[in-house]
């Protein structure tokens, strides 16, 4: 038990931060701690949370993906046009995931074989995918879908909204992949020491490409949730989403240096951001101040993290 606590100390710290935040908001506004509001928060958080899973994988390999927001928009409009054209919903969903994954794999190939820094490759993809989304729709949103498709976001099981269920499923799977599979082991190894990983026989290029592909695919999944929820696919959706995903990952304790991080931490990080936004809204704080507060929280979280690490070593 003690070992478990020590091992997850960083995550407990973040969790305590989240709980303190909730208690403070509960005291400040009675509306905060209602079932309806909490479900609302998790539902709003689900999109960022899903993207942040891919981001966590990428950042553990010591990379970064700036293109997730644009990929989400592109995957969203392609998916929407497929549904509009009468493609059966399950196939349309696969198309959405596939478009996201393809963009991610291109990132991976450029990084692994093209030897581009992840920052540059995904910065380029950020612009390319956004342009593609605008070009594909001529800048117009695609709206109005069947109830089957909208059910993905509007439906619920046992009172839990579907987006939340999808989010939980993604986190459970991602946790399993990171801790229990070869891919997860290699993700940590590559970020911890790429050279040593190569010399241990790991096909680093292949696995890095897979990780970026995975990140793109999760952007596609986020596109599905968003499009179903809004009943509309916008080519300009997801602007700045990459920063929210990076923030959730980093608040959750994943090191930008790579090799370290836990998927549970990212969920807490995403929830902290969601709770903070929601709470500030309930308190009637202006959106200008909200921006400033959220930015400060990111900086403070990372400062605390660094201080803790220094103390440990």
């Amino acid at each position, binding site marked *: 038990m003690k070992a478990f606590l020590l091992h997850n100390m960083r995550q407990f710290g973040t969790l305590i931060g989240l709980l303190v935040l909730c208690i403070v908001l509960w005291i400040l506004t009675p509306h905060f701690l209602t079932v309806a509001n909490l479900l609302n928060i998790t539902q709003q958080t689900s999109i960022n949370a899903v993207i942040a899973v891919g981001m966590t994988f990428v950042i553990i390999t010591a990379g970064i993906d700036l293109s997730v927001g644009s990929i989400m928009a592109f995957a969203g409009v392609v998916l929407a046009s497929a549904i509009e054209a009468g493609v059966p919903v399950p196939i349309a969903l696969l198309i959405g995931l596939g478009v996201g994954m393809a963009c991610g794999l291109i990132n991976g190939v450029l990084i692994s074989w093209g030897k581009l820094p992840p920052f540059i490759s995904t910065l380029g993809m950020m612009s390319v995918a956004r342009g593609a989304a605008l070009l594909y729709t001529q800048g117009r949103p695609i709206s109005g879908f069947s109830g089957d498709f909208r059910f993905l976001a509007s439906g619920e099981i046992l009172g839990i909204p579907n987006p939340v269920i999808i989010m939980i499923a993604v986190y459970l799977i991602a946790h399993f992949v990171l801790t229990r599979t070869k891919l997860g082991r290699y993700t940590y190894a590559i970020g911890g*020491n790429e050279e*040593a990983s190569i010399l241990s*026989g790991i096909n680093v290029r292949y696995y890095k490409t897979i990780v970026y592909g995975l990140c793109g695919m999760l952007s596609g999944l986020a596109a599905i949730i968003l499009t179903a929820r809004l009943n509309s696919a916008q080519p300009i959706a997801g602007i700045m989403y990459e920063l929210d995903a990076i923030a959730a990952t980093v608040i959750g304790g994943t090191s930008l240096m790579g090799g370290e991080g836990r998927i549970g931490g990212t969920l807490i990080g995403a929830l902290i951001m969601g709770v903070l936004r929601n709470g500030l809204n309930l308190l009637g704080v202006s959106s200008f101040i909200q921006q400033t507060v959220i930015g400060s929280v990111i900086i403070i979280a990372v400062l605390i993290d660094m201080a803790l690490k220094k103390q440990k070593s």
Partner: protein
Amino acid sequence: MPEDIVLSMKNISKRFPGVIALDDVDFELRGAEVHILLGENGAGKSTLVKILSGAYQKSAGDIYLSGRRTEIRSPRHAQELGISIIYQEFNLIPQLTVAENIYLGRETVSVAGIINRSQMRTDAANLMHQLGVEIDPDSAVTDLGVAEQQMVEVAKALSMDARILIMDEPTSALTEKEIGELFRMIRRLKEQSVSIIYISHRMEELFEIGDRVTVLRDGCLIGTRNITDVTTSDLIRMMVNREVTERYPRQRMQPGREMLRVENLSTAALLQNINLSLFAGEILGVAGLLGSGRTELARAIFGVDAITSGKIFVKGRAQTITSAGQAIALRIGYLTEDRKQQGLILNLSVKDNICLPSIGRLSYMGVVRQRAEEQAASKWVGELRIKTPGIAQKVMNLSGGNQQKVIIAKWLCSHADILIFDEPTRGIDVGSKVEIYELMNRLSDSGAAIIMISSDLPEILGMSDRIIVLHNGQISAEFDASEASQEKILHSALGAA
């Protein structure tokens, strides 16, 4: 004290935690002389010059510059005192021009703070002229060859009025012709009464350019001689530690079948026509100086550096190895020279490091079989007596010796039976060294074949069954352990016939 002694270092000692790098060393430098500093790796040469250039502070002793007692406080202070050092790795900024590099941080500026480019350019051109070289002060350093960059470093030193110039292995990256030019320049510098401390391993050079030579060994001064009074053999005898003690518990085995054969292997960078065989139960020592191609040989066999020609046979079958993964599948393991940069993933656990190359075997359909993994890790931690609180401990918290054992465990776990050990005992304490030697005995006893690359000659002699010596990417000698000696190995390693 005679007039012409520009530098005198008396009773210099330098202690690092747990190590005495220099022990009561005297060194003096005359005006306008080229003084060679000679010794094996780790003999204390670089420590001595680092004290002189202000990079290290001495633990004890006195330094006199032109007879006056002086404390050298920092690299900058050393420069102000007229001492400049040119490292093997140049300190130039590639994107800047020659003139900008020479005057970096000391730009000629007008009252308004604007850099006077034309003045700097003229000054730089004058320096080049003084050195007798033709380099355009306006060319970017990145466009220059190694030899020219070195000249820029020398010009930079001269621009700071250096009276003492330290050159660390200045010829290691130069061609024959460039070496000739370098020597011409050194003679010019002597005429301008600059004194030079010259570190090099290349015997032929020493006799060509040196006036006197000082030999260090294990941090101690062995002696200073006029170059005309000594021979190569004298110098080698001075460099070599004669006492080979019983620190090496090697039990020699009867060699078994051929595990590895390399035929005419060459690489683009360095290696030329390497031929070697390795048998089960054998330890093959690989000696050679830094840059002789030892590590490159290991990397080529392990598939991480491409080979341009030649064949590799593993257990009798010709193999094309183009990745570490393939080498591992052929049961080859490679313990790298630099365990922190290349061997270990420091922030992962002992278990994860040990199992990393074997994860494929330890998983089913991509899912790691945790119990199998824990069992494997625990088994090797026990067998190798790795001191760790548990297999979940991060390897960064282990001692150097135990980290090294984790890497060995990693290769044993992957069932490697051809092991390449590159400097297996560097930087680890004596107790762990002996444990690693005993482990090597056990491995060869059980039929594994080991290639041991080492700079430590007593270790090579003590542990190997056969020894090959590399020089400039070629095998310059091969000995049976019984007929080898430090002198013979060093002769071949230095390329002396």
